[in-house]
C-alpha cells in the first residue's frame, strides 16, 4: 500500500483534471497541540469546487480537531489555511463563517420553540423598515433553499421534534443562506437511518452541482465511496493518504486508517474464573428485550451494535440507574436490587458512563472531590473526612493512572478529555470493583490515552475483574474483547468468540444479516 504524506494531495490533482487548479480551501501542514498531547502533528487537505471530499480516520486521529480549526474554534500552532489561495486566519467562529466555511454538526443545536425559518436566520433576521421582522422574506428564502435542495421541510414548523436528519438539513439551509462555499459535515450520518443517509447524499450532490465543496466525515466506508470523489485519511494526527476514491479499495482505506495490522493482545491473561455477573432475561420496555448473559472473573466481554441499539440502556439498568421491567441481575450468586446504583456499588459493580460530562464527573468540582466521590467512606475516619488521607489517596490514584493535572483543588474542567476520563476511571477503580462496565471508554480522547485505557482494562481483567466494554469502535472491541455480544434493536442477536470476531462479522450481526445464527 502506498502511504503518502500531505504532499501527495498535490500529486493527485494531475489525475483529477476536472477540478480547478486552485482549491477553495487549502490546509497545509497544520499542527495543533493541547498541552503535551499533539492532536494534529501534520495535516494537509485541499477541497476543490464541486467536490465531496471524504475525511476518514479512527477516533482520535485528529479529524475533530481539524474540523474545529475550520470552524474557527481552535487555531493551528503552525501551518496555513487558505481560501481561494489566500491565507486566512480563522480566529473565531464568526471569522470562519465570513470566510465561507460552514460546519454541520452531527447533532445540531436548534432553538426548539422557534420555527425552522427563524432558526435558519437566527441572529440575522431580515428586518422591514421600522425594525419589524420580515417574516415573509425569511420564509421565501428558506423555501427557495429547501426547494433547491429538493427537500420537503415546513419552514413554519417549530424546530422541536425535528429529526436529527431534518435538523442537519436546516443547518445546511442556513449555510446556503450564508453563501457558504465550504460545508464541513462532521459525522452527519452517525445517527441517521438508511433513507435519511440517501437523502443527505442527494443533497450533497446538489451542493456539488452548485460548486460548493463538502468535507464529509464518516466512519462508514461505503458512504465514503458512494458520496465522495476524493478521500483523505488521517492517522495519529497526520494526513497519511489523499487519493481519488475510485483508486482505492476499502481494504486499502482501512489499512491506511489503522496503519498497521490490528495488533491483538500479546499477553495471555490469567485463567478465566467463575461467573460473577449473571444477567437473566432482562427486559426494559422500548429499550431491550430478554437480554441474558454471564460475565466471568478475568474476562473482557464486548457489547457491540449500532448507536441506539440499547447497549447503554442495558448497562445502566444493570447498574441501577434505570429500572427494568422483567428479568434479574445476579452478582456472585446474590440477586441485585434493581434501581439502586448504591446497591450495585455495594455488590462490586462499577459503571464508567458514556457521557463523561453529564454523568461521569461533577465538572465544577475539584479533581480530588471527583476522584473520591464514589468512595468517600474509605477516607472517612470517625465520621469525618480525613483531609490528608483524602489528598494522599486521590494523589496516589491520579499518579497510578498518570493523570496530568495542576493541583488537586483545580476544577476537573481544567483537564483534557483524556485526563478527565482517567479521573472517572480512578474514581471507580479505587473501589476495587469485581465487575466494571465501561461505556464508550475512549470516546473523544487522544490516541495515547486511549492505548493507556486499553492497557488498564486488560490489567484489570488480569487481576480477575470482569470487564464489560461497550464501544462503537469495532477495532476497540476486537482488540479487547474475549467475546463480543452483539445487540441489535434491543435484542442480543449473536455472541461471537474472539477467534471468529472480525469487523465484518460484528457489523453483519449488528446490521441484521445472519440473524439465523442468533445466540
Amino acid at each position, binding site marked *: 500500500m502506498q502511504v503518502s504524506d500531505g504532499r501527495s494531495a498535490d500529486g493527485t490533482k494531475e489525475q483529477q483534471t476536472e477540478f480547478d487548479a486552485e482549491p477553495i480551501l487549502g490546509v497545509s501542514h497544520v499542527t495543533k497541540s493541547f498541552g503535551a498531547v499533539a492532536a494534529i502533528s501534520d495535516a494537509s487537505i485541499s477541497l476543490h469546487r464541486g467536490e465531496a471530499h471524504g475525511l476518514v480516520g479512527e477516533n482520535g*486521529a485528529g479529524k475533530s480537531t481539524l474540523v474545529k480549526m475550520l470552524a474557527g474554534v481552535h487555531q493551528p500552532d503552525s501551518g496555513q489555511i487558505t481560501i481561494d489561495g489566500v491565507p486566512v486566519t480563522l480566529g473565531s467562529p464568526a471569522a470562519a463563517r465570513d470566510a465561507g466555511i460552514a460546519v454541520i454538526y*452531527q447533532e445540531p443545536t436548534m432553538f426548539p420553540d422557534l420555527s425552522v425559518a427563524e432558526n435558519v436566520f437566527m441572529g440575522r433576521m431580515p428586518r422591514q423598515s421600522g425594525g419589524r421582522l420580515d417574516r415573509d422574506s425569511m420564509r421565501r428564502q428558506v423555501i427557495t433553499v429547501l426547494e433547491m435542495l429538493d427537500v420537503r421541510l415546513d419552514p413554519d414548523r417549530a424546530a422541536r421534534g425535528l429529526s436529527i436528519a431534518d435538523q442537519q438539513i436546516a443547518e445546511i439551509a442556513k449555510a446556503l443562506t450564508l453563501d457558504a462555499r465550504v460545508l464541513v459535515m462532521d459525522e452527519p450520518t*452517525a445517527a441517521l437511518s438508511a433513507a435519511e443517509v440517501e437523502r443527505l447524499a442527494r443533497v450533497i450532490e446538489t451542493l456539488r452541482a452548485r460548486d460548493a465543496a463538502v468535507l464529509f466525515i464518516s466512519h462508514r466506508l461505503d458512504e465514503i465511496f458512494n458520496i465522495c470523489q476524493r478521500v483523505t485519511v488521517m492517522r495519529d494526527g497526520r494526513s497519511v493518504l489523499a487519493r481519488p476514491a475510485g483508486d482505492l479499495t476499502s481494504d486499502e482505506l482501512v489499512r491506511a486508517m489503522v496503519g498497521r495490522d490490528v495488533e491483538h493482545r500479546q499477553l495471555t491473561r490469567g485463567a478465566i474464573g467463575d461467573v460473577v455477573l449473571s444477567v437473566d432475561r432482562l427486559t426494559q420496555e422500548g429499550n431491550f428485550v430478554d437480554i441474558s448473559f454471564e460475565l466471568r472473573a478475568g474476562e473482557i466481554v464486548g457489547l457491540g451494535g449500532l448507536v441506539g441499539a440499547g447497549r447503554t440502556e442495558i448497562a445502566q439498568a444493570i447498574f441501577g440507574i434505570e429500572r427494568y421491567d422483567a428479568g434479574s441481575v445476579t452478582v456472585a450468586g446474590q440477586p441485585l436490587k434493581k434501581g439502586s446504583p448504591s446497591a450495585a456499588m455495594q455488590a462490586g459493580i462499577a459503571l464508567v458512563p458514556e457521557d463523561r460530562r453529564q454523568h461521569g464527573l461533577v465538572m*465544577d468540582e475539584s479533581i480530588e472531590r471527583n476522584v473520591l466521590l464514589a468512595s468517600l467512606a474509605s477516607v472517612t475516619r470517625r465520621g469525618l*473526612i480525613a483531609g490528608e488521607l483524602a489528598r494522599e489517596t486521590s494523589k496516589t490514584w491520579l499518579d497510578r493512572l498518570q493523570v496530568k493535572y495542576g493541583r488537586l483543588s483545580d476544577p476537573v474542567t*481544567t483537564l483534557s478529555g483524556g485526563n478527565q476520563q482517567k479521573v472517572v476511571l480512578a474514581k471507580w477503580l479505587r473501589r476495587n470493583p469485581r465487575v466494571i462496565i465501561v461505556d464508550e471508554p475512549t470516546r473523544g*480522547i487522544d490516541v495515547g490515552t486511549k492505548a493507556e485505557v486499553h492497557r488498564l482494562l486488560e490489567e484489570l481483567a488480569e487481576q480477575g475483574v470482569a470487564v464489560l466494554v461497550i464501544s462503537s469502535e469495532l477495532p476497540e472491541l476486537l482488540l479487547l474483547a474475549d467475546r463480543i455480544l452483539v445487540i441489535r434493536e434491543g435484542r442480543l442477536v449473536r455472541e461471537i468468540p474472539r477467534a471468529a470476531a472480525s469487523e465484518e462479522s460484528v457489523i453483519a450481526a449488528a446490521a441484521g444479516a445472519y440473524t439465523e445464527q442468533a445466540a
Partner: protein
Amino acid sequence: MSSESRGRVRARGLVRWESALVVILIAVVLFGVAESSTFWSTTTIFFGGLDIGQVAIMALPMTMIILTGEIDLSVASMLGLGCAVFGYAFEHHTGVVGAMLIALAVGAIGGALNGFLVARVGLPSIAVTIGTLTMFRGIAEILLGQSEVSGFPPSLEQIGIAPIFLHLAYPFFFFLVLAAIYGVVVHRTAFGRSLYAIGLNTEAAFFAGIRVRRTKFLLYVVSGVICAATGIIYSLQAASAIYTAGTGLELNVVAVVLFGGISIFGGRGSVIGVVLSVIIVGLTEVAFTTINISSQEQQVIFGGLLLLSVVVPNVGEVRNRIRGRVRRAAPPVSAGGGL
C-alpha cells in the same frame, strides 16, 4: 469564555465573597459605633441575637437545602405551626416536654410531606413549599384561632429575657451551636460533600451512587424539625404561642442564606459565610434601629445588599451573560468523536 476559566472565576469569587463579608462586618460595626454611643454594648449583642435568632436558626437547614439546588419556602409557616402545636398541646395538658415532642413530631411530618413531594414525586420544590407554606399556616390557625396560649413555666420563659451567658441570647446561642454542627457536617463529612455534588450535577451524583432522593427527603425532614423547634423557642421567648408567629420570615431566611454566599443554583458556598451573613444582618438591624432608620428604608438597603451578594460572587458569570448571551446559544463545538 471556556467553562474552565468560568470555574476559576467562580472559585476565586467565592473566596473573595467570604472576605468581603468580613469587611462588611467590620464596616457595620464601625458604622454602628460612629452613629450611636450605645451600639458598642452588651445590649446590642443580646437584642441583636434575640432579634435575628429565629431567622438565623432556620437559615441552617435552608443552607443545606439550597446547596442541593432546592428551596424550602415553608420554613416560617412551619415555625408558626410548631408554635401553634406547642401551644395547643400545652393547653391540653400534655406538659411542656410533651408539647415540645409533639411539636417536633409535627415538624418531622410536615418536612416529610415536603420531602416526599420534592424527592419522591419529583415536583419542583418552589411550588411544593409555597403550597405547604399556605397549608402549615392554615393548620396553625385552625388549631389556635385568634387565641394566645401562655403560662409556660417561668424558668423557660427566661430565654426571652436573660442571656444564656456572655450576653448571648438563647436563640442566638442555639444558632451558634447548631452552626458549628452544620459547619462540620457540610464541610467535613461525606454527606456534606454529596450535597455539593447533588447541587452541581444531580445526575453525576446519582451515577456515583449518592442517594439523591433519600438525601433530599432527609434535608426536608430536618428542616421541618428545626423550624418547629424554632417555633417552640419563639413561644417561650415571647411567653405566648400564636399562630401568626414568624409570618413572612421565609424570605428573610432565603435572603440571609444567599447573602452568605450560598448559590441559589446549588453547590456553592459555605456555612461560615452564612454565619457571617447572620451576624451582619443582626448587627445592621440593631444599628439602623438605634439611629431611627425606618423599616422601609432598612428593607431597601437589605434588598440592595442581597442583590450585591448574588452579583459579586458571580461577577465573571454575570459579565459574560450581559455581554454574550447569544454566544452561549452557538452550537457545541464537539459533536462526539475525535479529540
